[in-house]
């Protein structure tokens, strides 16, 4: 009798979990396309423009050539056969016809054991810190080096020669399956772990589909080292900071939420607002002029999962959201763009500067649209 009850309960539990999963994959969803104005694709980028950071003068850094150790074999084969390389591009959105430039990366320390190597460089999240005393820009980039643990790379930007000098690598067991980074100082940052598992694809898929909340936010400062400031999240992806550094925004993709934290003196994070999103946000880019947030999102999850497995065959719907903030809290949300995946697949980042909307994708194109609608 007890065995029957136990079996029935387990079956019911498994059933509701499967239904929840199927629902969150979005097979029932359909939306119509719309754009803020005429759009064009950048011919230079074929394989990803996953994350952005925009400076107050319109200079925007774009990471390209994403690959993660937990991606599928089919994806890795496609990546190597197409000769894709990890790279960082820069563009200036201030000019009417934004032109893309690939940055040369100079490695100070040779690629010895654990050192930085361009061959294994697969950039993801990016954040820029402007040091007012030294007058230089430090770029913090999430790197998924081939067959090694995820880490954060630090580069110094030389605007005269458009080069990046690699200065430091940040590694630690607390940095698991990294997604994004937010610089808070010359040598300090927050980083998001999208998942706990970072080596085995099988366990990664298990963790993903079990919907276990093992995602977290890690803080690193020179004084306090690496610490887990927020834990128990459901796939945290993008992380952004408000203009004055008072608030931290964490995107939960599978959790379909945005968490707003207020930042303490000691860099601790206190939850201030939970904003339900009903879509899956990837990264948030701060508008350096207005302080608003622009989000690249994946509205139909199953399309994105298939797209990242086989980009040549599957398209994924893209969506750009514009969030307005009041005293740190999100108070309004508008959809700037929706595309069925034909113009751009798997939008992961977006920013509006000077009436131009730049939309980036995880492993697809880079698109610029004129913004003819009120922002």
């Amino acid at each position, binding site marked *: 009798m007890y065995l029957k009850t136990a079996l029935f309960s387990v079956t019911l539990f498994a059933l509701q979990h499967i239904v929840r999963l199927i629902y969150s994959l979005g097979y029932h969803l359909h*939306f*119509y*396309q719309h754009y803020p104005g005429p759009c064009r694709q950048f011919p230079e980028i074929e394989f990803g423009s996953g994350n952005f950071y925009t400076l107050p003068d319109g200079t925007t850094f774009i990471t390209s050539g994403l690959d993660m150790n937990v991606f599928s074999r089919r994806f890795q084969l496609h990546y190597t056969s197409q000769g894709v390389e990890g790279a960082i591009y820069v563009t200036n959105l201030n000019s009417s016809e934004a032109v893309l430039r690939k940055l040369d990366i100079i490695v100070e320390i040779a690629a010895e054991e654990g050192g930085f190597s361009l061959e294994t460089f697969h950039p993801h999240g990016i954040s820029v810190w402007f040091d007012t005393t030294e007058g230089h820009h430090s770029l913090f980039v999430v790197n998924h080096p081939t067959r090694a643990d995820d880490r954060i790379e630090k580069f110094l930007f030389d605007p005269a020669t458009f080069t990046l000098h690699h200065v430091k690598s940040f590694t630690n067991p607390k940095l698991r399956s990294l997604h994004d980074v937010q610089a808070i100082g010359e040598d300090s940052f927050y980083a998001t772990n999208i998942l706990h598992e970072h080596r085995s694809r099988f366990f990664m898929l298990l963790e993903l589909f079990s919907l276990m909340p093992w995602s977290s936010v890690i803080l690193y400062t020179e004084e306090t080292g690496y610490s887990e400031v927020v834990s128990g999240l459901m796939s945290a992806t993008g992380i952004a900071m408000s203009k004055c550094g008072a608030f931290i925004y964490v995107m939960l993709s599978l959790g379909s939420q945005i968490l707003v934290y207020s930042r303490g003196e000691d860099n601790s994070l206190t939850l201030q607002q939970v904003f339900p999103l009903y879509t899956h946000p990837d990264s948030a880019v701060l508008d350096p002029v207005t302080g608003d947030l622009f989000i690249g999102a994946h509205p139909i999850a199953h399309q994105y999962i298939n797209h990242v497995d086989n980009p040549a065959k599957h398209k994924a719907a893209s969506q750009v959201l514009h969030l307005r903030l009041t005293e740190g809290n999100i108070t309004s949300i*508008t959809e700037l763009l929706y595309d069925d995946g034909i113009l751009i697949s798997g939008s992961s980042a977006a920013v509006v500067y000077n009436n131009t909307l730049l939309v980036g994708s995880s492993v697809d194109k880079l698109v610029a649209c004129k913004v003819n609608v009120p922002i």
Partner: protein
Amino acid sequence: MDVFSGSFKHYPGECKKVKGARHGSEDMTWTHDGLVFITTGLGIPDVEKHLLATGTHGEIQLFNFKDPGAGVINLKITHRKEFDIVKMRPHGITLLEDRVKGEHILYVINHLETEDRELVEKFRFSPSTRQLTHLKTIELDSSFFFNNIVAFADDQFYITNFAYMPYKGVLYHALINLFPIKLGSLHFYNGTKSVAVTESHATPNGVALSPDKRFVYMAASMEQTLYVYKTYKSNAQLSLVQKIYLGVKGDNLNLTPQGDALLLAVHPVFYKMVFHLLWALSPECISPSSVLRIPLGSDGLAVESDITELFYDYGELISGSSVAAAYNNQLLIGSVANSLVHCQA
């Protein structure tokens, strides 16, 4: 019922409510020089109570795209005593455009619920006095409920029979909106009587005619489908040439002035629309609004892959959008019982 549906808001430009709109703006018909005739005062429960309480009735309003700031004005109707203007509850509207003198002929569906009659009123517009003269009343079979109308020729029009409704009560309306039973069809009135010219559909709603009168477009709400029919000289039966599943419940259809696209107003979250129709004047019962642009090819068929969502609102600016018209980079959006919105692209 769209319980799990919902999208994010976006506008094609600067959108504002239009002055002078009070009891909704269920349907619109337009002229090539920017005039729009709008029906207001459809007798849904809350609105009907308000109309009786304030001693007002359904009206036909005029909006001018060339002067959007002026808002809408109620058109004065000169009529014989037999026409009971107090009981007027207009629904669909269409016109036969007079491009020479501007004396357009309007046909308006009028539901006389108190007497259980379904009528189509014929008016002539006088551009000099900006008044309507009531010409005649066409009586239709009252066991049906008619929704939208599009003029074909003088005293000839296509009219959507929303459902077979021998009993026009709120409960019956609610049932029709819950279960997509095929109780309606598209009718053609040939001057003397109206006959069904298509097979049965569940709640046919909006109807539009291509400029060359060769194609009839019809949106069936509960079926979430757009039907495209080809007309023949006799207008006896239409033949179906295209069927597009939209996935949303469409309301009224209008062509763009250039004839290159259809504008379909939709109710994206239908269960909210059901509550809105029952308690239209309650601020909590708002319903999201959306307008789709369905481009038409040179062959008269709709281009399904290029359908764009022009407008989406959560219901705060406009609730329950039922119709849209475009002119010269402007969009006018009407609702069943809520505001009238003008967007400047």
